[in-house]
């Protein structure tokens, strides 16, 4: 097991190298000289040349990339062109906001998705089942952007129950420790800030959770239906076990592996969805940082953001694979024989 994990972690290196290369290449193939774009109407040839030199854009592509890799190897992601801040520091500030939002959304998605899927599967071809199926189809099809605005119109503008945007009310006085606001408010014993940040989390969290909830519900339903057809379920029922016990302890446990797979994959998609959700709800996270960086052609920052997204995605996949073992004792990991 430990060897397997080590093996997988080693594989990270080529994956990240690949990501670094592809993003670097994409950015350089994107039309438009960043220096020209940054200076706009005021771009004189001298100013453009000076800026290109400062940004190192006047050197050949290979040189630029190798320099970047060299610095990357020492953990130096460079400095943001706009602010001259360390990219690593910028990421460190924004990443917690995104993770907090994503974890919350994932939690919601798992609870709602599994519950809806189980409900559908246990009552196939009933009103509940149809509702679940329709609901999940709509959930998958609905554009996040539109849903976010709709929820905001309803809960913030019409009903006035929840805040529109941001992570905290402008007047709140939370002391930041980890930059996970829920955690920080608990650590500093600031219960008002806890409630405040939870209220701010609800709408973006729900918006972000829609797509994964729908996928998880569908997968749970399908996997459960398959499991419920198994011989052992008949045995369990014959033993006189109550239906909830059969469903939850026997069938669901077996249906869990495919559900776990889809959950792991959805987490990645969710990080992508965070880009849109963060824009709508003015959530100061990694997604918005990426968008701003792209618009400003802040190459080092874009690169840092994408690397971090990739790293998170890969690590989440590893975590999912490891969770299989917990869910299904038959699965054992060994490095492949040479």
């Amino acid at each position, binding site marked *: 097991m430990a060897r397997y994990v080590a093996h997988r972690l080693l594989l990270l290196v080529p994956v990240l190298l690949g990501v670094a290369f592809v993003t670097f290449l994409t950015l350089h193939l994107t039309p438009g000289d960043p220096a020209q774009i940054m*200076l706009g109407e005021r771009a004189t040839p001298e100013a453009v040349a000076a800026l290109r030199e400062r940004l190192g854009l006047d050197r050949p592509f290979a040189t630029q990339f190798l320099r970047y890799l060299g610095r990357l190897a020492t953990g130096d992601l460079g400095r943001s062109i706009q602010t001259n801040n360390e990219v690593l520091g910028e990421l460190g*500030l924004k990443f917690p906001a995104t993770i907090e939002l994503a974890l919350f959304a994932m939690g919601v998605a798992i609870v709602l998705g599994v519950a809806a899927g189980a409900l559908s599967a246990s009552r196939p071809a009933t009103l509940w089942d149809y509702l679940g199926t329709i609901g999940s189809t709509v959930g998958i099809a609905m554009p996040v952007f539109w849903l976010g605005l709709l929820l905001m119109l309803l809960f913030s*503008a019409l009903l006035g129950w929840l805040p529109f945007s*941001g992570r905290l009310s402008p007047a709140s006085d939370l002391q930041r420790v980890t930059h996970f606001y829920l955690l920080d408010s608990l650590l500093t014993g600031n219960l008002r800030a806890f409630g405040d940040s939870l209220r701010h989390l609800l709408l973006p969290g729900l918006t972000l959770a829609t797509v994964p909830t729908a996928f998880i519900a569908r997968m749970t339903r399908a996997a459960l239906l398959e499991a419920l057809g198994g011989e052992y379920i008949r045995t369990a029922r014959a033993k006189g076990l109550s239906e909830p016990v059969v469903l939850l302890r026997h069938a669901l446990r077996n249906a869990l592996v495919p559900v776990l797979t889809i959950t792991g994959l959805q987490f990645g998609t969710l990080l992508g969805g965070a880009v849109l959700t963060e824009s709508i709800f003015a959530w100061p996270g990694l997604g918005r940082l990426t968008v701003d960086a792209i618009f400003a052609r802040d190459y080092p920052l874009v690169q840092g953001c994408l690397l971090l997204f990739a790293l998170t995605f890969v690590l989440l996949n590893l975590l999912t694979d490891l969770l299989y073992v917990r869910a299904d004792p038959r699965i054992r990991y060994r490095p492949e024989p040479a």
Partner: protein
Amino acid sequence: MRTFVLTLATILVLTGSFLVLPVHLPAVPRTGEAVAGPAPLTGGTLIYGKPKDAVKLDPHNVTDGESFDVTRQIFDTLVQFREGTTEVEPALATSWRVSRDGLAWTFMLRRGVRFHDGTPFTAKAVVTSFERQMFKHHPHHRGPFEYWASMFGGYPGIVTRVRALDEQTVRFELSRPSAPFLANLAMPFAAIMSPAALERYGEDIFKHPIGTGPFSLVEWLPNERVVLQANRGHWAGRPYLDRLIFKPILENSVRLLELEAGTIHGMHGINTDDVPRIQRNPALVLHTQTGMNVGYLAFNTEKPLFRDRRVRQALSHAVDKARLVKGLFGAYGVPAQTPLPPVIWGHHEGIRPYTYDPERARRLLAEAGHPRGFRADLWAMSVARPYMPDARKVAEVLQAQFRAVGVEVRIVSYEWGAYLERSRNGEHDMLLLGWTGDNGDPDNFLYTLLSSDAAVRGSANNLAFFRDRRLDDVLRRAQALNTREERAPLYRKAQELIHEEAPWIPLVHSVQLGAVRRGVRGYALNPTGDHRFHRVWLEQPGGRP
């Protein structure tokens, strides 16, 4: 105070020192609405929604309006634009004089002013704030300092020296006379910064802005909020607000929803389509202000086709400008008749616009040897610019209007960087572009955009590549003069020449929009694009937004 300054100015005039020329009788800044309506109330917190967060809070080292919106509140400049105008008035300098040859500007500084860190404001702070920007070898010259270079022509550019004559007097020495010099010093990049803070924070100064302005920084959480508090000891009186919070909200529609719900007090960045909705809402007040900008069509006068003035005039007659602007800009633009926006002094009110007259256009084309019209390319930007949010649509309307007089236009677009580069090389027949001014000086438009000095291939800003000796002469003469009274007639003459020669079709001056809740008073938009909160107050300082 006023008496003192007036006396000082009078003495200067009377002693008749022939070397100096007083150009301004200083006055204490006006206090906006305080004169007319109800007496302003003090206190309260105002939350203002903006489309983007500041990039850096170092005014010397940023170029974007969103950063300046914050630094404007924290820093003062030696002189400032009077609210709502481009008139220059005293700020940290109480008076100034310029030598007869226009090469030395001497500023008398305000006494008793302190930075937010408690250190006194002296001539040394002024010297440091400028030397940092102008000298590449200065220990705190870390960063691009792009504004300095663009306004003064490099490092150090036309300013050769900034010297403290004593604690309260500073002299700027210039390598050649520059009439817009004073207006440049009112721009936000000319902010005066605490030298002690610069020493203390070094490269991190952009997170710790220390100025003398009406508000000081409490906290800045990037992309989340910027919290400022009143500087109660400000030299022009404390701001009415206790606190000012900037909240970045990316989406225009979401920001408006928040304003409607009252979770923010004011905002800018308004979709044109949302204007009627704001006007209908009794809880909101819409503010508009013609910006210091122009969107135009330039004929490349180096191309044989457009060398003939009659062709340019013909196409000027072919454009139904009023309809174009009304249809595409709505409340967001006003038709332009000259390159100079009406908010800038020297704007010529008397220019008689080219009437919309297709018949006359056809006649002029025939006279010029094109009885059956011709074909040409019209370039349009692929990106939204402040003076023209959708250039493709403008191009399409022009295409239809030109077609009516027999001119077939092909619309061409390039990626933005390439567009600028190719147009500076003069590759276009006709192109759409625009300009946003920043120091409120006519020179910044007319000389920058239409003099032959600016028509050099590769670095041209004069994209009509228009070279006219009479115009050059007028513009250069205006540059060498120091008073507005002497310069204004020359700029009027320049606009007449431009109008007659028609190297451009000036199309539109875009309008800035802003909105506040009804209880917010003293909010005003400025032609310079600044948002200032010194004189903003709340009718209910204790109430929620």
